[in-house]
């Protein structure tokens, strides 16, 4: 591998293999190794292809992805065994390997590049601009795409206050969940008295079902670092911390290298760009606690204490880490900063809605055809994201809801699909932006179970310091469990609302105040489903085990045997090509057969 390579800008061919977490699990690293090995056997190749491992392309569904530049060819689901064919046909002879191209499900056409697919065409990349295009381990790749130019522009030609004014004018709001105006936060820290100030990057991405920040840290670590240096210059901080979730091994690895490389190049250290500006960054691995995404808890964790939040009568911008003024922004927020500073605030502010500017990265997952990372302008509707980019609901089932905002968010029903999403519209709908998870749910997802799932998650994550959150979550969980087991009563629904209200009013931090959202939003939009559980002892999605009794319709069953093969307890019997039968005395109601049957022959009583 060579480091001084121009990506696609000279006549040599480049092979990019996605080695993000998603593609690595599908064997991306093996494909990368196969290219390296096989290319050594081809000294006759005149133009030496450069193999680069890139970060997550976001199109995890089709991984491992291999891209060939400068011709912009994308191959999907590549196996190590395909590598020789790619080298012989495409690299040497310039012929496409058709079976590895993406096939548009509607037009049935083979598309040569991922840029031509609906999944990519409808996106607008700012925070993700470099991901999948560069090798995250090579600082030169970042520099070649305009990296560290914003830093030069700011340090050599702008005052700290001008940087803050730029961010204010761009309308950038924090991408971590709350949507607090970033410029205002920086201003408060700059105005705070004292010479020692800190910058923190919150990379403790804890929302289940969300991986935007992981992909940015893995795929473009330098943009986070450059954003932080700009922030430090703006507020007058000399030290920064990146707090990374413990589970994210690859992100830690790339960030560590990126910080070292940046230091070596003089972008970090005691005399940045020979201007005398001093700033350095330490990496901290989180201990694995969801509540540490809350900024006061995160600060406690860095200080070597248990991650319990405290009240915010005084904001961290005045008294934060070790009692000093501190700016905390999340990964995606930092990734936007270099772009805004370099190109000016106007082009950023031109994108989005009245009060939410720029783009937002979403992790589109769940029961949707194309899963992966999606970056769209604020104000894009849920329908555009789920149907045009996401390709609709998996297996053509009907759409029931989309969950946004993680455990602090809520479920949005089909009638609100045309809602243009920004910070404010989602809050009005009873959910929130959160960090950007979008989890698509179909008619086989039980909304009571979803609410119970989130509350159960929060029950394990509540730090236990304040009573409304600690006891409230436990009570909610008890009631929801009761309902999902068919033991609920009508009065339970009022009780859920009462407890939720108290938690919203009286909890100490945002975790407790927003914890009832999954319950309240499902009650608001899916009350019928709760009632069906309580009154008819039936789970219409076939998920709650105590309330789901399955049988096979002999008229529909063609005896393919798929259900029997998937049954964990061998409860399904039947001759081949004859209708099968479920033995009620053995069945554990897991619903696996119900989900596997391609002919809808398994019914819910």
């Amino acid at each position: 591998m060579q480091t001084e390579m121009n990506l696609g800008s000279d006549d040599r061919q480049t092979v990019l293999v996605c080695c993000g977490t998603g593609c690595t699990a599908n064997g991306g690293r093996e494909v990368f190794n196969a290219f390296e090995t096989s290319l050594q056997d081809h000294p006759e190749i005149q133009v030496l292809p450069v193999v680069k491992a890139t970060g997550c392309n976001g199109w995890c569904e089709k991984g491992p992805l291999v891209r060939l530049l400068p011709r912009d060819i994308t191959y999907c689901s590549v196996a190590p065994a395909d590598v020789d064919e790619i080298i012989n046909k495409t690299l040497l002879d310039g012929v496409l390997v058709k079976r590895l191209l993406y096939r548009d499900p509607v037009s049935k056409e083979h598309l040569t590049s991922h840029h031509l697919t609906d999944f990519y065409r409808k996106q607008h990349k700012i925070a993700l601009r470099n991901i999948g295009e560069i090798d995250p381990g090579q600082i030169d790749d970042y520099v070649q795409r305009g990296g560290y130019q914003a830093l030069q522009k700011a340090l050599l030609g702008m005052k700290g206050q001008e940087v803050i004014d730029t961010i204010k004018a761009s309308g950038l709001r924090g991408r971590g969940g709350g949507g607090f105006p970033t410029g205002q936060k920086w201003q408060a820290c700059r105005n705070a008295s004292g010479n020692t100030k800190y910058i923190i990057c919150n990379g403790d991405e804890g929302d289940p079902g969300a991986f935007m920040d992981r992909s940015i840290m893995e795929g473009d670590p330098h943009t986070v670092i450059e954003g932080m240096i700009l922030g430090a210059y703006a507020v007058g901080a000399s030290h920064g911390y990146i707090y990374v979730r413990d589970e994210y091994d690859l992100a830690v690895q790339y960030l560590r290298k990126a910080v070292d490389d940046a230091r070596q190049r003089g972008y970090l250290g005691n005399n940045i760009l020979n201007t005398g500006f001093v700033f350095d960054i330490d990496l901290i691995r989180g201990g694995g606690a969801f509540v540490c995404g809350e900024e006061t808890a995160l600060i406690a964790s860095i200080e070597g204490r248990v991650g319990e939040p405290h009240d915010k009568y005084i904001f961290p911008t005045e008294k934060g880490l070790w009692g000093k003024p501190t700016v905390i922004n999340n990964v995606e927020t930092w990734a936007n900063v270099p772009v805004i500073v370099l190109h000016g605030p106007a082009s950023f502010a031109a994108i989005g809605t009245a009060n939410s500017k720029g783009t937002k990265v979403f992790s589109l997952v769940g029961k949707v055809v194309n899963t992966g990372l999606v970056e769209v302008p604020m104000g894009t509707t849920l329908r555009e994201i789920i149907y045009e980019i996401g390709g609709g609901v998996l297996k053509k089932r009907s759409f029931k809801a989309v969950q946004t905002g993680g455990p602090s968010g809520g479920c949005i029903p089909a009638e609100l699909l045309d809602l243009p999403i920004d910070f404010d519209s989602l809050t009005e709908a009873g959910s929130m932006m959160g960090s950007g998870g979008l989890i698509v749910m179909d008619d086989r997802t039980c909304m009571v179970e979803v609410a119970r799932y989130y509350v159960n998650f929060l029950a394990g994550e509540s730090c236990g310091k304040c009573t409304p959150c600690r006891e409230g979550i436990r009570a909610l969980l008890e009631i929801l469990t009761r309902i999902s087991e068919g033991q609920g009563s009508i009065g339970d629904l009022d009780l859920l609302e009462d407890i939720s209200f108290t938690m919203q009013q009286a909890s100490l931090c945002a975790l407790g105040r927003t914890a009832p959202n999954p319950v309240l939003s499902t009650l608001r939009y899916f009350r019928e489903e709760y009632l069906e559980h309580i009154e008819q002892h039936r789970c219409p999605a076939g998920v709650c085990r105590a309330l789901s009794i399955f049988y096979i319709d002999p008229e529909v069953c063609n005896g393919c045997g798929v259900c029997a093969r998937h049954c964990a307890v061998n409860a399904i019997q039947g001759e081949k090509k004859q209708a099968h039968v479920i033995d009620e005395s053995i069945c554990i109601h897991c619903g696996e057969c119900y989900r596997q049957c391609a002919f809808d022959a398994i019914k819910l009583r």
Partner: protein
Amino acid sequence: MQIDAKEYENASAYKSLIESYAGKPEYLLAIMQDMQRQYNYLPRLAITMIAAHVGLPVSRVYAMASFYKAFSLTPKGRFVIRVCDGTACHIKNSETLLDQIEKQLQARPGETTADGLFSVETVNCLGACALAPVMVINGRVYGKVNRSDVERIIKEYGGQSDAN
């Protein structure tokens, strides 16, 4: 809980790991993480040594150890199976994977098999949602797994095919 005799044999190794950091409370989390990574759990003796080194009561170190999920107070199995129960995996029925694991290994999340070979855990999200449901064994990620995949994978690691 008693301090295992084996822990005394490791005392000098604990000591050199701990002393690679300055004795300040701000390094507490990092020291504990290194210890966890090295030994797969926090030995009781090591906890008392860490507390002395950073100048905090043992209770403070114990509070950290029990608060953060990264830490374990008992030794884990040789293979740690982590089943993702993030939202995307959950609605794609990660529960089925746990059922299969329990059937094969008689271990629920949080437990270690009697032979010390496997520990079973759930994690809130591995950030590999596009591959849901996901399972990780000692860092190796298995995506889009179903019940029969789990059976096969566990067999590869030396687990029984079906203990029943």
